[in-house]
Structures are given as C-alpha cells and as structure tokens.
C-alpha cells in the first residue's frame, strides 16, 4: 500500500475515534440540555399573582398586605371582563323572559300542544342553571314542531324555535368562554369555591397563562376538508360574539392580561422543599426527595457494613483458593444481575415470603443488594491501595492483624471507601426497577422526619414518580415543568454525589502522591 494511503487510513482512524468521543459528548448534551433547560423552569419562571396567592394561602409565605393591595389591583383590572359577561347574561335572560308571554299563551290551549307546553313549563326553575332552562324550552319547541296542525301556529312556533335556538348557542358559547376565562384567571368573584384545588386558582405560571389566553381568544378546530390528515385551525372566538356586549372583551383581555395576572420573575425554591398539592399541579417535590433520601440512606446502612467487612476479608485475610475465587465469581455475578430481578426477588422474598410491608425497609434492603457489589469492589480497591509499609510498620510494633486492619488500614482507606459509598449512593438514588414492587406508591403522606416511623411506609421516591407522573398523571401536559424539574433534580442529585466522589478521589490521589514521594 502506498504510504499516503496508509497515512490517510491512520488519520481517518484517529478521526473516527475523535468522532465517537464528540458523538458521546453530543449525546450527553442532547440529553441533558433540554432536561435542564426545561427543568429549571420549575424553579425560575414568571409567576403570576395566582402563584403568590397560592403560596400565601397554602404555605403562609409572602406579605399579606402586599397581597391585599395586589388583589385589589387585579380585581380592578378584571372587573370590566366580568361586567361585560354579566351584561351579556342579563341580555340573554331578558330574551328568555320575553318568551314567557307566547309560551304561556300556548300553554292555555286545550289541545296536545297546550298540554305539552304546560308540562314543560312546569320544569322551568329559576334556581336551575340558565342553560338547563334554555334546553328545556328548546326541547319543547322541538317537540312542538312535530305537533303542528294549523299554519298560523306553525309560524309562531318556528319563530319561537329560532329565538330559543339563538339563545341556546349564545349561552353555550358563553359557558365555554367562561370556562376558558376561569382556567386563566381563577374562579369569578362570587362563584362558590370549588373543592378541587386546581379549580381554585388561575394560572400560576405566565407561560401557561399565555397558552390559556390563547384558548380564550381562539377556538381550536380541525379542518378535514383536504384529503389525508386534518389540519389545526384557530378560529377567533370573537366571531361568536360579534355585535354583542362581549365583543370588546377579547381586545381588552389581550391587552390587559399582564394587569390581570401581574407576572413577576419568581425563584420558587419551594419546589425542592414544599410538599406537592393536588398531585403536583401545585407545590414541590419534597416528599419525593425525602423518600429518595430515606431509601438511599437505608440501602447504604445495610450495604456498607457488610460490603466493607467482605472487602476486608478479601484483601487482608483471604488466601487464594477455590472457595475465594468462587465467592468472587458470586459477587461479580451479583453485580450483573438485572435490576428488575432484584425487584422481583424483593417482592417474592421480602414481601411475599417474609411478610414485610411494602415500604422503606423493604425498598432499602432491595437497593442494598443492588449496590453491595459496587461497595465491596471499591472498598477492596481502597484497602489494597494502602501501602504495604503501613501494615508492616503496624505489625512490627506488635499489633495483631485485626488491630492493624482496624487502626491503620481502614482509616487510611477510609476516603477511598467513602468514595465508593458515595458513588453507590448515586446508583441507589437513581434506581427505579428494584423499588417498583417493594417501596413505591403514587400518593403517600410525606414521610415523617423521624426515621423510626417510616420503615413500613411506602413512599413516592423521585425516580419512581418520574415514571409514574409522566405516564399516569391525568394532567401530564399541564405539569411538564414538574416532570422536567424532577428529572433534572434526580440527575443533579446523582451528579453532585459523583462530583463529590471525584473530588474526594482527587484529594486521595494527591495525598498518596504527597506521602509516597
């Protein structure tokens, strides 16, 4: 082969290596950047007055007087909207009342039309929602159309029908509009307070508020006139209300949304320290974080003593032989067991076999098995890294083997053991499959801060709840920021643990270098 070709091959080989490294970094960025970018919006976002009202009312954070003045301001800004709606409603009511006269006239007739009308009119009730009454009359005129016997009545009924039809569409449109506005601004003044928390507040986030504003202004429709798939079209809602009192409402809302919601740049650190309200539509992820912390610490508690003892045995006492290599194979096999099999084993043995309750204890025991091999390996490495001279010095002073290990080797290896422990903590915090059957629940009370009370409590650990919320939540689209925030949080937790371990390791290697030279 020519030397130039060989050189080219050499270069392309190197560039393929570089390319794969670049690809790896790119993959990392592609995964992390969107998660962090959208996850950060869980904490830093444009919060509306509703967000502050929520915090004040539910978590008692914020200034009450400031809130009061803010509320007066937004009420003033919102007043025209509700006034317009009220005028419109009154007008519709008047239209309906005007129908009273011809209807009672009809009811006085002695034929079937009269009887039918009478029966229907009895169902009218001022206390019922307006739309229900409208619909009652609408049904009546609908039935009457089939009963008509003479021409002069027919015209009358048809006119009645047309009027009621118009009232009905207008009212329906109004109900839709009111619902859209309620979603944006929260319940109208004077409305009874809903039970469900998500209905008690308007949009707490400015980005969501703009989406909802768009829904107020436009109706989303799908156009199927073309062949193939439909196209999304937005129909201005104002078209439904041309020439009515409500027509100016849309312009007003579009220009005055800021006055009505008063967005402010908000740092909501409570995302990490608040409990969730109404299944993560409001509030933070503290219970999840706490659950993860408990599970992780529990796993460490069980795995570290056992792992360190095993490591001591392997590095200090074990003499090579069949038994030891067998034990080593066992441990490396344990490291290769798929995490779901651990979960399965936890379920079958701990829950079904030992009748432990589904909860933190069962979960941490299962997780302890997952991280045990990592701990044994890293501890063994750390112990082996302790220079021989240390041991020799201790032994020459007459210390027994055990004493040497406890007083000299372990303290010297402690940073290394700690590094391994911290890395396994990251692993335990991120694992999901082992805790699905053993510890996870969708909704559970926030764990108490007293560790002795939580052992039998199931918990919504962070990793599990990411899965659970993004596949199971009925309003997953509304809480995207929470989902991304949770994912970013769990990645950050694990990364911080790893960073900590890296720093620890760097310090050890420095120390070892310093001591050996």
């Amino acid at each position, binding site marked *: 082969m020519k030397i130039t070709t060989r050189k080219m091959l050499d270069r392309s080989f190197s560039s393929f290596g570089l390319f794969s490294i670049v690809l790896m970094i790119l993959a990392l960025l592609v995964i992390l950047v969107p998660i962090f970018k959208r996850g950060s919006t869980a904490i830093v976002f444009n919060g509306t007055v509703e967000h502050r009202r929520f915090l004040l009312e539910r978590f008692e954070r914020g200034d009450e007087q400031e809130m009061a003045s803010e509320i007066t301001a937004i009420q003033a800004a919102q007043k025209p909207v509700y006034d317009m709606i009220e005028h419109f409603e009154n007008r519709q009511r008047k239209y309906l009342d005007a129908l009273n006269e011809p209807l009672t006239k009809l009811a006085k007739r002695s034929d079937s039309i009269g009887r039918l009308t009478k029966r229907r009119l009895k169902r009218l009730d001022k206390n019922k929602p307006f739309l229900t009454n409208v619909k009652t009359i609408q049904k009546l005129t609908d039935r009457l159309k089939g009963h008509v016997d003479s021409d002069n009545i027919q015209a009358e009924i048809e006119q009645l029908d047309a009027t009621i039809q118009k009232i009905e569409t207008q009212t329906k449109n109004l109900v839709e509009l009111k619902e859209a506005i309620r979603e944006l601004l929260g319940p109208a003044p004077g409305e009874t307070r809903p039970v469900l*928390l998500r209905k008690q507040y308007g949009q707490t986030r400015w980005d969501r508020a703009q989406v909802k504003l768009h829904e107020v202004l436009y109706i989303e429709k799908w156009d199927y006139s073309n062949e193939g*798939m439909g196209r999304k079209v937005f129909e201005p809602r104002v078209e439904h209300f041309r020439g009515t009192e409500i027509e100016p409402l849309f312009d007003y809302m579009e220009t005055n949304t800021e006055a009505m919601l008063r967005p402010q740049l908000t740092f909501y650190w409570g995302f990490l320290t608040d409990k969730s309200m109404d299944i993560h539509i409001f509030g933070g992820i503290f219970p999840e974080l706490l659950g993860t912390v408990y599970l992780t610490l529990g796993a460490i508690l069980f795995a570290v003593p056992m792992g360190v003892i095993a490591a001591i045995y392997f590095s200090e006492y074990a003499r090579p032989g069949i038994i030891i290599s067998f034990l080593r194979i066992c441990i490396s096999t344990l490291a290769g067991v798929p995490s779901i099999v651990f979960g399965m084993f936890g379920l079958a043995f701990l829950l079904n076999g030992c009748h432990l309750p589904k909860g933190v204890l069962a979960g941490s025991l299962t997780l302890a098995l997952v991280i045990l091999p990592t701990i044994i390996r890293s501890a063994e490495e750390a112990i082996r890294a302790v220079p021989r001279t240390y041991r020799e010095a201790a032994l020459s002073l007459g210390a027994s083997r055990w004493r040497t290990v406890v007083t000299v080797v372990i*303290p010297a290896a402690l940073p290394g053991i700690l590094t391994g422990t911290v890395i396994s903590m990251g692993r335990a915090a991120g694992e999901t499959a082992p805790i699905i059957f053993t510890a996870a629940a969708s909704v559970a009370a926030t764990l108490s801060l007293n560790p002795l009370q939580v052992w039998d*409590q199931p918990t919504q650990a962070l990793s599990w709840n990411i899965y659970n919320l993004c596949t199971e939540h009925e309003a997953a689209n509304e809480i995207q920021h929470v989902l991304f925030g949770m994912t970013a949080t769990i990645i950050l937790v694990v990364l911080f643990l790893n960073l900590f371990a890296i720093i620890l390791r760097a310090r050890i290697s420095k120390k070892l270098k310093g001591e050996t030279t």
Partner: protein
Amino acid sequence: MKRLNQKRIKNLWAIALLAVALVTPTTWAKETDQLVLDGSTTLGPIAKAFAEYYMAKNPGVNVTVNESGSGNGAKSLINRTCDIASMSRFMKAKEFIAAVNKGVMPVAHVVAMDGLPVLVHPSNPVKALTVKQIRDIYSGKITNWNQVGGPNLAIVMISRDTNSGTYETFHKLIMTHKVDGKKIKEKISKKAEYVGSNGGIRTRVQSTPAAIGYAGLGFIDKTVKALKVNDIYPTRETVTSGKYPISRPLFMITNGYPKLGSHTHAFVTLYLSEKGQEIIEDIGFVPVTKY
C-alpha cells in the same frame, strides 16, 4: 490518632445500634392511622384527589394510593395488604373464591361511572366507528385507516396492559361478540402496543397521528379526539343513561362492610357527599348519584 479512632468506633456502634433498631420493628407502636388503597390507574385520579382531600381534612391519617392495576388491587385486598381495592372492573370469580378462602369478604362500593372513549389523534378525520369496526381494528383485520374512511395510514393500536380493568372492560364489551348464539372472544392483535396507564395511552395517542387507543373518561382533553361509537358520543349523559356502548361502573372494594366511624368507611362513602361528587365531576368522571 488513637482517640480519633475510638471516636470512630463509637460512631460505628451508634450506626450498628440504629441498624438493629431498624430491623426490630415491633418495639414501637404506630402513631398515625393508615389507609392503603391499591388498584386501578383509571380510578387513580379519583383516589388521589380523595386522598388529598381526606388527608387535608384529617391530619392524623396517612392515605397511601398505589396505582398498579385492578388485578393488583384485588390481590392486595385478598392478601390484606390494602384496606380498599380500587377496581375498574368487578372481581373475577377466581379472585372472589380466593378471597373467601382467605376469609376476606369483598364488598363493592360503586363510586362513579366511567365510559371508555375510543381515542384518535385530532388530526385524524375519522369521526365515528362501530363496535364491529373497533373490534376488527384491534383484532388485526383492519390495518389501515382508509378501510374505515380515513387517510391511507397504517393504524397504530394502543392498548392498556393486560393487568388493567380498562383492558378487561374493553375486552368484554368490544372484543367479545356472539356468532350464531356462541360467544367468541377475539384476541387483541399481537401488533398492539401496550401501555401501563390511562395517561400513557393519551400521551401516545396525542403524539401519534395514526394511533387509536382507549382510556377512561377522565383522561380526555383537547389533545385527543374521542370517537362516536355506534353513533353515540361519550358524554356524561350518554354514559349515565347507558346509551354509550362502552360504559362501566368504578368500584372501591373493602373487606366486609367497613365499620361505621372508621376511616375506611368515611373514605369509601366520600363519593356520596356533595364535595366528593364535585371532585368526581371535576376530574371528568360521572358521579353515581346526583342531588
């Protein structure tokens, strides 16, 4: 060095003691009352909202909700690992027998009604299907949307996992039919994708133009389109009246009728209260009784 070491050993002792304390759970008594729900993801929104409401009302009570499927709910009730099994189907005969053999007497409370809307992507021009068409789609006889009046696009079937009551209901009401007086259960095509939850179905349908799926009434929003089935659109009215062909009751099942005044009793009768009904309605299901 030595003193430091002793301190460390003391710490080790403390940790060891803590570990011992953790594994001997009988030494302390529970201070809070606990209420454990297990079962359907369809009932999930109701159960979760009830749980939050109940915990807010009774601060001393821990309500835990697991959404792991109706089958799991039944299992937990039989194993006595939960107080209330929330199920989107009734207990099967086998489960009932297992329960009775274990001394558990299942008592069902119908908390709400639910329809199973058949969902497609909103860009899909298909507006209505018959039960037979849905059956043919899911059994793999119809594979393209143009066979039911839609565009030329291969159908992506999405089904709930087999451990869900939603799946069982769908299977019973859609996939089972009578030919010459004989009941035939059609199998759902192997090509169907399985999703572990109602929300998952909606997520998949809203992001897949060619998809068809089914989920609980409470999971419909603007991002998916519910189809008319046999010319009936799933609404609260058509579900309550039973006109909509795929309707079902949702159950909470307890072991025996709960003692009056117990938390279990208060919880399973929450649906009778006005607040409870409002919650059910707001979440998108149909309350059983209307005052």
